[in-house]
């Protein structure tokens, strides 16, 4: 069965969705990703959907769910490279994905994640 690879990059996890998502694949990804976060102790996940050209309400919800699961596991999620058509579809479906951080491309997504992480570190240092 095909799978979407979850790559590790230091503290972060990198997921690139290059194929059209179907429901089974999405559920598998959810499973793989949460496990990988736990196993690696990742602090941030970057999901690149620049190659994703079609979404339905299920995939939209799945993206939102992954982000919520990440938050519970203390891991920031950034969604990058959404295509205009996908963005319009999600909005028309009423899925505004509140609480998900977004960025235009991988580079900006990475700097956003690093910023979030350093903010957290500062916060922790202050608390101590």
């Amino acid at each position, binding site marked *: 069965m095909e799978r979407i690879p979850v790559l590790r990059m230091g503290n972060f996890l990198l997921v690139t969705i290059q194929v059209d998502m179907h429901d089974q694949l999405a559920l598998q990804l959810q499973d793989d990703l949460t496990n990988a976060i736990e196993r690696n102790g990742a602090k941030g996940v970057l999901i690149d959907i620049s190659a994703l050209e079609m979404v339905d309400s299920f995939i939209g919800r799945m993206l939102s769910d992954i982000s919520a699961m990440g938050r519970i596991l203390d891991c920031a999620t950034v*969604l*990058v*490279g*959404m*295509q*205009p058509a*996908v*963005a*319009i579809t*999600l*909005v*028309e479906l009423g899925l*505004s*994905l509140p609480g998900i951080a*977004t*960025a*235009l*491309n991988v580079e*900006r*997504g990475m700097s956003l994640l690093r910023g979030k992480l350093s903010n957290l570190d500062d916060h922790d240092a202050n608390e101590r």
Partner: protein
Amino acid sequence: MASSGMIATVLKQRAGELNAQWLKDLSTSNAVSAQGRITPDELEQQSRQFLQLLSAAAQVRNPADLKSPEARPLREFLEGLSRSRAQQGFSSGETASFIFSFKRPLFDALRTESGKDAALLADEVWAATELLDTLGLHTVSTFQKAREELINRQQQEMLELSTPVVKLWDGILALPMIGTLDSARTQIVMESLLQKIVDTGSEIAIIDITGVPTVDTLVAQHLLKTVTALRLMGAECIISGIRPQIAQTIVHLGVDLQGVTTKANLADALALALKRSGYKITH
């Protein structure tokens, strides 16, 4: 052809009588009565001119043939008539009834003229019907053509008004919106803005609504959709050019613009955008 001869004779000899009767019918009939869109004088002038031209055209061998050179003045008159009716806001039915309502006075006149000869009357009525039907149909088709031209022109104007996305600075796009926003237009605007964001890699978009006359719930919803779509793609959005009345309307309508950065004018929005991009303005 003998039959058309009689129509021609009737039209020539009883022109005044026919015109009076026709005008009377026109003024009583609801479908044709202008209801303020056209004055009685104008109507009388049009009917007289029509009668003259019809009478001239009826002299030829086959008056129902509108393509013949003799029928040209009549044809042009009808085209002008239906064009002006289209612009005055008449329906196609009302325009056609102007011609069809002439049937009654004409048939009456033919009956008087033919006396007791029923076969002759039937022939004459058939010829007259054929003639007037052709004229009526021609009027309707011209009317439709005029309406189509009107619609095409309006579409053209809409496209010309369609909103351009301009680059204000490196990474800052602006979208000055002018005119009323409807669903179709917002869709086009949204698509072009999002595409431009991808093409230029800009992170901030300023939507300026100075030229939007009114903001109702639907327009506000469209704006919010655009803002959400922009956020989903990872860009920020600032809405500028909100006039005091519009601010009042938005609050009265209970539209929730929280989470959307708004500025009173484009200059403020640009200043904020520059600041967020890390630019500093020095004197």
